[in-house]
């Protein structure tokens, strides 16, 4: 007794979880959570400084948001709960649909009664006189319109889009696949960034060969891959508009690969992408008193232009401040500016960080040494470096397959609605007969209603007594 009560209870719970009303409620809840994430500032989408500034401007409101976990919606238990419930709901729905599929796609000869046809939408009664082959004529008319027809002695059923329930199963399965892929991605994704200039090598497996930027790869070294940067090439139009940016790398087999934005290099499931570039100025610092010179290629980012960076000078115990303008000009206010990142007229502004009173000096490329306090500094060379993003995502292909299936399923199901037309012959006592015609289409009335009406007209003409 207790066992059957438990089974009954479980069945009820299962039915509740799989209800399509619940699907609608869960989709609504997901929408609401996404809306909150779009309206409330999210910690993950702002820098700590921006978030602090927001916090200072509205401390009470943001504290309230934080208390309810609204500033980290995508990591919140509420979001996870709705996501999991939606997946469960989808899974159960899919199970129900898959079980019903064989019955739904089967086309069986019907045994219809005239009385049952009369109340239906689009019903039409066509007098056919003593013509006993009315059903044959109807079957032929439907066949001409590419309906699949099954008939018994007195009635027939014709279907178009018979397999469209399969599309529905594909669509719901694809959503589960996308959800599963997303979970795999979240739990297995590795990503790293490395900044390399020409001739620099990326080979985490080879110890002692690491440039300073490799520290960023501590948790995701991607030892499966190794390459050397050959060159970074950037092309501009006459108006300094960038039209091409390419990174050339040479793998360990000696093959060269060109990487461009949107066109990554893939190996061992790792995506190597060229995502950005900066400039590496080679600066020589000469201290005449000590007779010491130092050249330090250093990678700076010049977007936005003139962004301040630091230039450590080993041996001198000095850190210089540097701003680089690759396409230098003085604007209307006499301020330094750059037209673009094109290396047309590179000028570095160099200052001594520990001597803020000392004015910074402008050092054009190849113009010779310029005095900076006790030093002579010169800009000898400027070259591009590449920001390279590496990522390995095991859930990616699951999501891709899911996305493609979703489009196929959705387009098939919604684009090819299932249309059913049924006919039934009613013999009358006077020896004549009536052909009853009715039909329905999924989702929309038109253009099916027009087609049904045309079929009715055609049969009425053909079978007129």
């Amino acid at each position, binding site marked *: 007794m207790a066992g059957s009560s438990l089974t009954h209870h479980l069945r009820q719970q299962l039915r509740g979880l799989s209800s399509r009303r619940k699907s609608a409620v869960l*989709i609504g809840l997901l929408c609401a959570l996404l809306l909150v994430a779009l309206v409330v500032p999210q910690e993950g*989408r702002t820098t700590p400084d921006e978030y602090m500034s927001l916090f200072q401007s509205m401390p009470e409101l943001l504290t309230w948001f934080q208390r309810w976990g609204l500033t980290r919606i995508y990591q919140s238990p509420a979001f996870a709960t709705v996501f999991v419930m939606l997946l469960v709901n989808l899974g159960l729905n899919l199970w129900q649909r898959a079980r019903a599929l064989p019955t739904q796609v089967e086309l069986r000869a019907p045994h219809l009664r005239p009385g049952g046809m009369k109340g239906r939408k689009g019903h039409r009664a066509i007098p056919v006189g003593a013509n006993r082959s009315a059903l044959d004529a109807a079957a032929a008319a439907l066949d001409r319109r590419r309906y699949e027809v099954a008939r018994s002695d007195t009635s027939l059923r014709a279907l178009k889009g018979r397999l469209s329930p399969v599309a529905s199963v594909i669509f719901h399965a694809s959503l589960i696949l996308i959800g599963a892929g997303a979970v795999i991605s979240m739990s297995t994704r590795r990503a790293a960034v490395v900044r390399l200039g020409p001739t620099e090598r990326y080979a985490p497996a080879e110890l002692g060969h690491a440039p300073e930027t490799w520290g960023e790869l501590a948790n995701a070294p991607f030892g499966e891959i190794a390459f050397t940067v050959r060159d970074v090439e950037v092309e501009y139009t006459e108006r300094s508009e960038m*039209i091409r940016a390419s990174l050339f790398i040479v793998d360990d087999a000696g093959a060269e690969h060109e990487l461009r934005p*949107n066109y990554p290099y893939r190996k061992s499931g790792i*995506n190597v992408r060229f995502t950005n570039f900066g400039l590496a100025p080679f600066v020589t610092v000469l201290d005449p008193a000590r007779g010491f010179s130092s050249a330090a290629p250093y990678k700076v980012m010049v977007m936005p232009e003139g962004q301040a960076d630091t230039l450590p000078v080993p041996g001198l115990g000095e850190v210089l401040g540097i701003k680089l303008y690759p396409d230098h000009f003085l604007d209307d206010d006499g301020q330094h500016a750059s037209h673009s990142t094109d290396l047309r007229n590179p000028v570095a502004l160099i200052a001594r960080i520990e001597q803020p009173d000392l004015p910074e000096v402008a050092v054009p490329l190849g113009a010779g040494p310029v005095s900076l306090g006790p030093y002579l500094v010169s800009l000898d060379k400027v070259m591009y470096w590449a920001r390279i993003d590496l990522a390995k995502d095991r859930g990616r292909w699951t999501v891709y397959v899911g996305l493609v299936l979703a489009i196929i399923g959705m387009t098939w199901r919604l684009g090819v609605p299932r249309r059913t037309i049924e006919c039934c012959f009613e013999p009358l006592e006077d020896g004549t007969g009536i052909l009853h015609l009715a039909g329905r289409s999924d989702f929309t009335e038109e253009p099916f209603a027009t087609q049904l009406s045309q079929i009715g007209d055609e049969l009425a003409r053909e079978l007129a007594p």
Partner: protein
Amino acid sequence: MNTAELVIAWSACVAYALTSVIVIHHMIFASRRAVKLAMWAAVAGALLHLGSLVVRTVASGHLPVMGNYETASAAALFAALPVAWITLRREDLRLPILVAVPVIMLALGWAILKRDAVSPLTPPFQSTWLVIHVLFANLSFGGFVLACGGGACWLLVERRQRLGTTGGWLDRLPSLDSLDDLTFRFALFGFVNEAVMIVAGAFWADALWGKYWGWDPVEVWSLLNWLVYGLYVHLRVIHKWRGKRMAWLAVVSMITVFIMFWGVNVFESSAHRLMAM
């Protein structure tokens, strides 16, 4: 933006404005005069609009997919062309479909105000996925605008029937059932196209940013919008909702469409604006 392009785009705007004035006049004074003029003005507007984007494409050497002007103008064109087509072919739908013209005019006007210089495609935009992404985004926008127009017409006709008033251009609208059907078909069209847009965007994002989904505001708004229309489809197909509730849903859902296409890029910091490099 060169002078020829600007003149053509403004001419399109003027043609849309003329249509809008006639349509509004019809709505207020229930007059049937000048309906044909409104139709031809809308058609002329759509052709001029198309011409402005052709000039832009020739000048820039790429399809109009970059920057606020190009994307907004192209989206408006994808609503204008079906409007022009339907108004020429279906007399019964002429007036309801022309109701969408003021929206198209505003979209084009906003685009012209946001116009920028013609520029070549920068490396992040050099992707086939971008063309697919933008094309389907525009198709979905067109579908949603027309669904909104259909929903609005349904509500107007229903109110009229409830109050028992007759006369005027609303009498020429199709039946409530037909409008309901039409609204759903346009919404369905937008829904499927938006799905393709999101999928193409995911493929593009993976190639460009290294991840198919980044919770960027534009991405989240498009997902939200797709879910809203998914709910609309679900309620209609599974729960057999019809009539007033669906018409209101079609009209109100347009809010998320507008935010997704324009609002979010204006007010939010988004990777869709920066694009790296």
